[in-house]
């Protein structure tokens, strides 16, 4: 063992110390270092990706044949409800907060988050509500089974009459998740507003920071509305009120407004940071500046604003009057404009670039490809008469998995590979990465493309059994889904083995421009500590030949010596 000559204090240090062996115990402690918290978030959420994926495998197993044969229909309902909930609240939200923790301070040159303790507390709420949610599998009567929307009055039925039931635990978990997210959002926004490096005006911030800021703003405005709705639902379920119970004069549709007022914008909370990842990665691997940086940055807030005024497009067929449908159709379609600005800017960035197709770039390209498709089906859904036909069918399920898995998860994978060397100090294995990409891309396409047709033909979602004419699409989909399950093997293998024994990573393996690449890999606890660089250029100066910060050579040299 070579670690004998270390100062024992180093081994106990609460954060990585360059050159010292890694003290993995810090990942299991109440650590306030944003980089440790970031990795805690990411590792936890990847675990829940497996859990959510396992549930999805059972769902797809049930759906490979028309009758409800694998599991009882009541069990099926619980499975897909928990699948949706786990994927959103335990995989996507936490993993993106993980990225925020790793990237925001390093990209803006801050030593840490504005409120490190609050940050750690927000993370440690994740295992708490994860336990509550997973515990609901053992609640009397099983977990919540009314879909991730939890629409009353169905969600209030509580057949066994126990006070502690699946739905109760589900609401509790969602509320705790909301509290954790608000804590995170306050922290991220404060950090971005107050802790940027000298010289880093808003229009010198990397686009990832812009998108994170735009996304967290949505959290701040939207989440409280959902929390309000959830509290009312809980009172209806457990304390005898009747806000949403028609028997007591309540209105079930009111809940839908509360729910979608948040849960629609929430999808942009998820996709915006991925737009940020695309905007960071395309320039690096195309070796070109981001096309129209300012437009791309500002478009993020265009999306934030529009996202808050479109929610009723999930309610076109609930009895919403025509004038309201029309307003919401217009606002929804408008989102195509700022989104289009981003998409075209990425294409402009690729154009005449010098493309390097390593794993992160492949995932980005695949994600963009899928996103354009998904956005177009989104616009179709916004078209009222079309939505009236395909709403609540597999067309919707296919649309949103095209964004949520085929775009967002792709972006997340791209981000993981891209920043893996920076934050673990190790290189990943390119070959395994490419296998992972190929399996994922093919599996995802097989899984979700055919289901659009099932939806157009009228196959409702949330069904444990279906008419035989839909079988063919479902068989292909299930095969694709199982391929996705297999794809997780090279990924896990890659992550675990590279982190344990991958080659040492240099500070800037991709020759990328950005403050985080001026730090050693992995960065020390306080990032730049006391000499925070002064930013003098816009980000993404590829091929422009001007330095990003004053005394750039000093920082480069320091990062290499560490």
């Amino acid at each position, binding site marked *: 063992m070579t670690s004998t000559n270390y100062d024992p204090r180093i081994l106990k240090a609460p954060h990585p110390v360059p050159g010292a062996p890694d003290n993995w115990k810090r990942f299991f402690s109440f650590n306030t270092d944003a980089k440790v918290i970031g990795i805690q978030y990411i590792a936890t959420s990847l675990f829940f990706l497996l859990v959510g994926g396992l549930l999805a495998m059972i769902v797809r197993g049930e759906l490979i044949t028309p009758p409800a044969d694998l*599991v*009882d*229909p*009541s*069990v099926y*309902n619980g499975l897909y409800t928990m699948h949706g909930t786990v994927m959103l609240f335990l995989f996507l939200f936490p993993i993106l907060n993980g990225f925020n923790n790793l990237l925001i301070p390093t990209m803006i040159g801050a030593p840490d988050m504005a409120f490190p303790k609050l940050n750690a507390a927000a993370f440690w709420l994740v295992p708490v509500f994860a336990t509550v949610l997973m515990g609901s599998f053992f609640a*009397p*009567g099983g977990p919540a089974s009314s879909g991730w929307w939890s*629409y009353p*009055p169905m969600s209030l*039925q509580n*057949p066994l009459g126990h006070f502690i039931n*699946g739905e109760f635990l589900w609401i509790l978990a969602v509320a705790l998740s909301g509290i954790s997210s608000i804590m995170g959002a306050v922290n991220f926004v404060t950090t971005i507003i107050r802790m940027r490096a000298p010289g880093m005006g808003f229009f010198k911030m990397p686009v990832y920071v812009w998108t994170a800021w735009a996304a967290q703003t949505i959290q701040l405005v939207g989440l409280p509305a959902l929390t309000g709705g959830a509290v009312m639902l809980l009172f209806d379920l457990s304390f005898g009120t009747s806000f949403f119970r*028609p028997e007591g*004069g*309540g209105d*079930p549709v009111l809940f839908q407004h509360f729910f979608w007022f948040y849960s629609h914008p929430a999808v942009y909370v998820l996709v915006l940071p991925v737009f940020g990842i695309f905007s960071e990665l395309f320039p690096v691997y195309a*070796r*070109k500046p981001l096309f*129209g*940086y300012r*437009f791309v940055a500002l478009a993020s807030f265009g999306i934030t604003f529009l996202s808050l005024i479109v929610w009723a497009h999930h309610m076109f*067929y*609930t*009895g919403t009057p025509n004038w309201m449908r*029309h307003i919401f*159709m217009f606002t929804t*379609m408008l989102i195509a*404009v700022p989104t289009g600005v981003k998409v075209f*800017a990425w*294409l*402009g960035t*690729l*154009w*005449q670039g*010098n*493309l*390097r197709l390593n794993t992160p770039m492949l995932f980005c*390209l695949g994600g*963009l490809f899928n996103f*354009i*498709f998904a956005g*177009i089906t989104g*616009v*179709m859904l916004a*078209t009222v*008469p*079309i939505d*009236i*036909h395909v*709403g*609540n*069918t597999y067309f919707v399920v296919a649309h949103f998995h095209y964004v949520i898995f085929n775009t967002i998860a792709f972006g997340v994978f791209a981000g993981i590979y891209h920043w893996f060397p920076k934050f673990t100090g190790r290189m990943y294995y390119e070959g395994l990465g490419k296998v992972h990409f190929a399996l994922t891309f093919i599996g995802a396409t097989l899984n979700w493309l055919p289901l659009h047709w099932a939806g157009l*033909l*009228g196959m*409702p*979602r949330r069904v444990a*059994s279906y008419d035989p004419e839909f079988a063919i699409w479902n068989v292909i989909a299930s095969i694709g889904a199982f391929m996705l399950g297999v794809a997780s093997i090279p990924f896990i293998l890659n992550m675990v083995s590279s982190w344990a024994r991958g080659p040492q990573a240099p500070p800037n393996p991709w020759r990328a421009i950005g403050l985080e690449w001026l730090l050693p890999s992995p960065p020390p606890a306080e990032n730049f500590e006391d000499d925070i660089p002064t930013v003098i250029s816009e980000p993404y100066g*590829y*091929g422009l030949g001007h330095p990003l910060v004053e005394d750039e050579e000093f920082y480069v040299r320091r990062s290499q010596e560490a």
Partner: protein
Amino acid sequence: MTTTAPKNGPNIGAILIISIAVAINLVIAKLMATWSYSWFPPQASSAAAYVDDLFALETGIGSFIFFGCTGVMGWVLLFNRAGKYDESDGAPIEGNTKLEIIWTIIPLVTVFAIAAYTMNVNMKLQTLGPKHKYAIGSDPTTLVSVDPSADIGPIDVIARQWSWEFVYPSGVRSSELHLPIDQRVNLRLISEDVLHSFYVPAFRLKQDIIPGSIISYSLTPTKEGRFRLRDAMFSGAYFSQNQTDVIVESEQTYDGWLKATAKQPLRPGLDPGRPLYDRRLSRGDKGWATVPPAPAPMVNDPGDPSLPHDA
């Protein structure tokens, strides 16, 4: 697309390539739009053609955008790849304000045009009538005035966990919905427990049914046949079973059916969740909690679920 033009004037070659690409893309978009009609069940109501046309239009526009964008991606993948040891940077283009304004305006105009056109279509469809809230326990059917433009009705559509019941003005009760072709029919949608949705894919129509509210809804079937009616708003354990058929028939057949059915005694109607629930009970009530199915509706015509449906 953007910068093939060198500093000195337009580049004929580039313009030619772009024009050919756009032309090919237009052809593909047109083909996709035409093809899209075959992705639907048959058109069996007056709304269906509108929906399919709109969908074809958007498939065309969408395909043009999709293949246009992915075409650019394909192009750079083919021609702009860095060689193995090529560490050089690409062309340092930072943006192009004119271009950016163009690609803001074009989508803006496109979506406005689509939305305006859709609004127009939507006004023509006019299926959704007024919705009235009522206190559970009172009789809601007094609340909704009949759609004056309807030829027949109102037929009460009653959804339950997990069965359908249709009550005709003459008092006839049925488990399947019989409708005469080419007549505008007025329905009153009623739920006694949770949310359901009246969805007939061949009609391209769907409307949620909300407990505590009664909704007036009108439609015109235009094709004879037996079509699937599916509950499309999740309603609990046996949601997927909650289906029945709509039978669109000629006026004579319809009248004959009404008369003949009126003479039938009331008996338990379709109750598709029941067999699964009984199976569950016989296996020791294993599974996760569910409310028991509502009692089967008492109807004059219980229907025949074994008959094959057209869509």
